[in-house]
């Protein structure tokens, strides 16, 4: 009685009806229930039309035509894709009323299952030779299936790997993955140099390894990341920050501070603290020798490199405090500085200055805490 096409429509109609009831009960929503119920009715109507027309306008009394129609030919094997398609539709529907991520998963499953089902159904009717049909299907689908499957597989492994890395402590991470690396190399060595090793054993070992990795990743992901301590820096200075920028002493932010700069090609200026305790200035262009002031543009990130050629660890500081005006409320004291730079070291400081230097009663100045003679006017027009 039921034709192939009508089965899908009947199933979808039943699913929509169940969803309408579930939505109505769980969400207490009228519009969603009406929409889903309407979908159930529409799908039921289409199923009825399909049954009446026997999928392709073949009348009920032409039994022989029905029996010999391509759509009536028995497929060579049961297919998993209709079930996967229905699962995708269910997940999609659930996603509509729960989380966006679930909805996206439903769409992906629905599209993938639909594509596979279409390719399979088409290939099964390519000829009377089942072997040839299978080959045709592989030729069409494999170029898409293999890269996608590989990408998904690699993605899962990498994600699991990262979850485990973030779950373990920094020390244990090194140990765990050193051991894992040794295991992988050993297995690879055995596979390469023991041709007698059964392929099933090799595949089994790899499968177990991958499963362990994925299971470990899932467990680690559920347990959460290890506590990652944020190290203090001189950025976003608070009262403690002011203390740092005014002091030649070492603070936590100064520990393990970088003593070299990679991006030296895009600096607005280089400021060198000489052995004699004075500043030397070098800006892009040839005309700065002996300058006692540096001009930096307003409201723009300016990279300034501080080079310490003195005998002690020093930092470069700048006071950008401006009093409140009609246009700006009181922003409080604003000091910026590098971390301590070792003798011979260099560091970058990026300055974005909103107010002009003439807004500050004494202007802006670069200075080095502990070195009175190091003072350089900063002009911001």
């Amino acid at each position, binding site marked *: 009685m039921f034709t192939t096409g009508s089965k899908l429509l009947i199933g979808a109609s039943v699913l929509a009806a169940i969803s309408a009831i579930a939505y109505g009960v769980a969400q207490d929503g009228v519009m969603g229930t009406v929409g889903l119920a309407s979908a159930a009715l529409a799908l039921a109507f289409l199923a009825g039309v399909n049954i009446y027309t026997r999928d392709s306008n073949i009348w009920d009394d032409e039994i022989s035509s029905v029996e010999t129609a391509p759509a009536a030919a028995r497929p060579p094997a049961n297919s998993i894709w209709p079930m996967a398609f229905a699962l995708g539709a269910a997940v999609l529907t659930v996603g509509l009323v729960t989380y966006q991520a679930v909805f996206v998963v439903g769409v992906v499953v629905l599209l993938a299952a639909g594509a596979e089902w279409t390719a399979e159904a088409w290939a099964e009717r390519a000829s009377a030779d089942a072997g040839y049909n299978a080959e045709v299907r592989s030729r069409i689908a494999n170029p898409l299936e293999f890269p996608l499957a590989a990408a998904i597989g690699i993605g899962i492994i990498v994600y699991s790997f990262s979850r485990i890395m973030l779950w373990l402590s920094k020390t244990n991470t090194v140990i765990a993955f050193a051991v894992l690396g040794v295991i992988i190399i050993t297995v690879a060595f055995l596979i390469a140099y023991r041709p007698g090793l059964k392929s099933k054993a090799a595949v089994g070992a790899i499968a177990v390894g991958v499963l362990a990795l994925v299971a470990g990743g899932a467990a680690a992901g559920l347990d959460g990341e290890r506590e990652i301590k944020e190290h203090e820096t001189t950025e976003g200075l608070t009262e403690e920050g002011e203390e740092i920028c005014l002091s030649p002493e070492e603070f936590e932010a100064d520990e393990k501070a970088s003593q070299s700069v990679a991006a030296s090609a895009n600096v607005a200026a280089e400021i060198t603290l000489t052995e004699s305790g004075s500043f030397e200035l070098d800006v892009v262009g040839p*005309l700065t020798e002996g*300058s006692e002031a540096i001009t930096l543009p307003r*409201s723009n990130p300016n990279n300034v490199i501080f080079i310490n050629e003195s005998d002690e660890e020093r930092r470069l500081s700048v006071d950008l405090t401006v009093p409140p005006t009609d246009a700006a409320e009181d922003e409080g004291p604003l000091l910026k500085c590098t971390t301590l730079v070792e003798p011979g070291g260099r560091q970058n400081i990026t300055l974005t200055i909103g107010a002009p230097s003439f807004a500050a009663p004494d202007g802006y100045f670069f200075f080095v805490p502990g070195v009175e003679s190091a003072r350089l006017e900063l002009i911001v027009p």
Partner: protein
Amino acid sequence: MSNPPLKRHPLRSASTFSNMSRRLRIGLVAGLGLLAAGCAQDAPQDTWDPAGPNAQMIHNLQWPVFAIAGVVGVIVLTFIAIIIVKFRDRGQAIPEQTHGKPALEIGLTILPALILIGVAIPTVGTLMALNETDDTECIVNVTGQQWWWEIDYAQQDGCGGVSEPIVTSGQMIIPINTPVLVRGTSRDVIHSWWIPRLNGKKDMVPGRVHTVRLEADEPGIYAGQCTEFCGLSHANMRMEVIALTAEDFETWKAQQLAPYEAPIGDDTLAATGEATFVAQCSRCHQVNGLEDADGQPVIARPDLQVYSGAAPNLSYFMTRNTFAGATFDLLNNECRDDVWDSDPATFGEKYLAGVSEDCLNSVDLREWLRNAPAKKPMYTDPAELAETDGLVRGMPNLALSEDQIDELVAYLLERK
């Protein structure tokens, strides 16, 4: 004996054009139009008309490269045309198929390689020469933002000495016959600085300082525009380089460093305009030396209002000829033509005269003050500023009254 039938020839007459297919006619007209565009006289952004040594270097490179490419192109296209006509399918037998001709293949590999090497050597040499900065004698900072250029002169010994920073916009003033080092960057997105008659393009990238040299042989105005798509009003982001004699350049610097002069009197239009400026404009636009009613300096904080963090400094607004990213002229057409068409000997004097009341292009300026986003597309609609935390990109509509516009125009006319 009968005569052989006469071969009929189509008539060659005035109807030839109308007999052409529609596509051919359109193509012909478009081609002629393009050809005619090359004859334009009023073309201030002509790369084939260099006005300084840097642009001349590019010109000296581009014309032989263009000639070589043209000759190669003609030879290749001629061969293709011959082959298409001579070997077209006329039902003849397929000729003998061969594979490989080492001498020809090697020759056709070596010949283009030699041509490319011949082009590469002067190209690399020119690029290296254009990148030299050691011989520059004047530094000018250029900062791009949507959709105008800020130009500032840092305190320096170069440029004949700059004792205090000078900030302007839209027009860069340089002394003639002086290698100028432009240090460029951007405050928001990537822009590109290009004055075709003085040098090539240079991208201005946020967080980076890029340099380009400029030098002009003669006094005059050299036009350019942003050449990296930068958003809604990219096409309206223009700039001009004004080249002056050394003497005129000194005069210009003195103009830009002159102390602020408040409008005379308390009840003049300009004096009222000063108060209107403080109330309406000074949050973003700096006028150096301007004080509020309490005698406190008025400090503009565009970083709190504008996405790029900057707005044009209007201290000496009427000393320049353009506004709104050099999109509009501050001079009316007659006075503008007088400056643009003046000979090099009198150009400086005319430019330095600035904008007088008689020469002011009050139509565009008033329209701009009335509703700036309607004059030049900008992102200023409060409903669409969530992405920038409420900061505008461009000048918003300040809903000024006509009286306020009159006052502001009177006040701005004195800013020189």
